[in-house]
């Protein structure tokens, strides 16, 4: 990471305490940088104001691309590029194209979505993201503020009043 950030973060022991803490932060208009959890916590997204993921739209587009690639590809090959008569059937035998068209739809949608997922998240082989705390992937639920977005005192009193078990500062 080229740009270093100073953060102050609190660790919670339970996702329910975390959810309530985020509610308190919303009421107090605190600017949360991010929330880190060991597993997906349901109900967190609307509290953080995260809009619904558009990944499925991307998936549809990739899938449609796969459908077209397969169907138009086979059509071009069997009617224009190299027409061969198989068993006296028409060159453009649509029902026989369905299975491959379906498979390529699924294949394009899956690969496209997975690649998009890693690209938009900034994740991938060789990516090293700073570790805020080793236990965030274990049993701690973390709310992090950027240090310039909140005063140290405010952050500490917020974490204390919402039941955080630990509060730390760190440069990441």
């Amino acid at each position: 990471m080229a740009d270093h950030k100073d953060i102050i973060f609190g660790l919670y022991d339970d996702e329910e305490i975390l959810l309530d803490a985020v509610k308190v932060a919303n009421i107090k208009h605190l600017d949360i940088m991010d929330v880190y959890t060991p597993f997906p916590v349901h109900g967190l997204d609307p509290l953080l104001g995260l809009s619904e993921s558009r990944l499925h739209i991307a998936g549809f587009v990739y899938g449609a691309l796969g459908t077209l690639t397969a169907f138009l590809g086979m059509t071009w090959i069997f009617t224009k590029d190299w027409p061969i008569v198989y068993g006296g059937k028409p060159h453009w035998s649509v029902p026989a194209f369905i299975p491959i068209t379906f498979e390529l739809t699924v294949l394009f949608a899956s690969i496209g979505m997975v690649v998009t997922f890693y690209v938009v998240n900034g994740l991938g082989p060789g990516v090293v993201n700073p570790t805020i705390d080793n236990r965030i992937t274990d049993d701690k639920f973390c709310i992090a503020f950027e240090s310039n977005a909140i005063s140290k005192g405010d952050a500490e009193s917020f974490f204390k009043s919402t039941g955080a078990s630990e509060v730390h500062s760190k440069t990441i």
Partner: protein
Amino acid sequence: MSSYTSDIREPLVNGHKTYHQITEDLVGPTERAPGLGWTIGFILSVTTLAFGVFCIIWTIWHGIGTWNLNRTIGWGWDITNFVWWIGIGHAGTLISAILLLFRQKWRTGVNRAAEAMTIFAVMCAGLFPLLHMGRLWQAMFIFPYPNTRGPLWPNFNSPLLWDVFAISTYFTVSLLFWYTGLVPDFATVRDRAKGLRRKIYNFLSFGWTGSAKHWQRWEALSLVLAGIATPLVLSVHTIVSFDFATSVIPGWHTTIFPPYFVAGAIFSGFAMVLTLMLITRKLLHLEDYITLAHIESMNKVILVTGTIVGVAYLTELFIAWYSSYVYEQFAFFNRAVGPYWWSYFGMMFCNVISPQIFWFKKFRRNIALTFFISIVINIGMWFERFVIIATTLARDYLPSSWSLYSPTWVEIGIFVGTGGLFFTLYLLFSRVAPVVAIAEVKSILKSAGDQYTGPNKVHHHGHGKDHGLHADHSVSNVDDGNHGAMATAGLTGAGLGSGIAQDYKAEKISTSQPDLNTGSVTNSGEVESNKQDPSEVDSQENKSDKENKGGFTGKGDQLKKIEGIGPKISEVLNAAGISTFKQLSEAKVEDLQNILDTSEGNFGGNSPESWPEQARLAHLGKWDELKDLQHRLDGGKY
């Protein structure tokens, strides 16, 4: 938690796990040196794999002539094994995709290993058609790519080519789905590791952070992948069945093949999942995560799909007769009473009859029996494919070209070798990756953990409303290695199960004694634990006394919690003036025996020797210890 917990469904995570304990249990096997069982298994697998590789090289060097295929029987063990492995590969995606769409929580315990199994099984399957092509080095001819042969394209009308697309798509999508699920768990492994190991797992985890937005996208991705993998998994075996169904061979060209093959694939896949999971569960001590509830659910799937397969077998016979088509009739007659009658009998017995015992709950929950039946089904499903392929081909239209077929050592060697490949890969996987999906198990803990659901659950109310007010009670738990210790200190002293305490901050938990009168929640015994400290143990005991006397109206109901005491004995004891755990714990064994002997009814088989000890634990609220004790007891006897 806002999530719904069911009183009826049994817990899917046992042992009062905390989030940290789940991490410990599931990452642990990748951090320890392998045990003896693993080492022996790995040596055996690699040895068989080596023999398989030798047989493959033999085949490539000398050609397909080393197999016993002949002019009549062009598909033998090779395609039988191919379809068998592909079928096994169906359970993984079924569990991870279809059960995700149906929101079946039990998938979390087995999906990771089942998906791994899928990927390895498809790899084994893919070998057979490739080898059968003869010239392995020209295998890329099956893919459409601009080439210097014209360009000459493959025949897109051929089911064999559809198979190429279906199986390569299936393999790719399964791999992506599996790996995306593994990424957060690799991050968990990474964050516990140091040095080179940490670097390797950081590479594998793609730099996962656990950010809320990432999780949101991760769930969206999983859901859509599940949505498209569901028709995919159904399409794959449908297309495999087209290899047969679009032909003009009697016994093959039946329209029932696609659904029948898909049901058979799920059937054999679940059998293999059970075989593998029961071994894994034992070797890696995952009994708390792969519970009897999981095993029972899978046995139900086996029962349903096995029965569908049975109906399909019978339908085929009926249609052969009903069609009045002599060649079709002969094909089925030949299968049942021809030279390969034993494989037809094996198929019917293993696939249709043997799973029927799973109509009985007792058998569905019997681990040894389940393991045995799962192997029987694996064998039976292999017979099915052999019946369909070799038996049918052996006697075609012309009696002069009838033939018989038995495999050579090369064919047997390749099949055994794929088994070696499968287990080698699976054993390696169990060393480097958590075999149970850590994040997913954590996400169902609050709705399916045994401290929250099922008979031993602890009711907790009114979460989250007021903890902000208890800031001064917050305990700074800064010691990394001491997870949950503060909560335990406050609660175990008060005689509550220690397991529940570890999850919850002491000031937050509000709990009652386990609900002994099934169905009715007693609030009378509810304890606001934030008011407790260890010095209040006495008052806590008084409270539980009060509960035992007043909280439960059903006379003596609670005594049935004691192993060895049923409703009858409970009545007898009540009549003798023993109606609470406290009274029972203070009673003498001889006195109890006396009560039993002098009462009406035959209680000769019941021994009260352990009752006072059990009652003492129940009275003190040590439900965990009681449960442990009852595990060791046999009908209440030591």
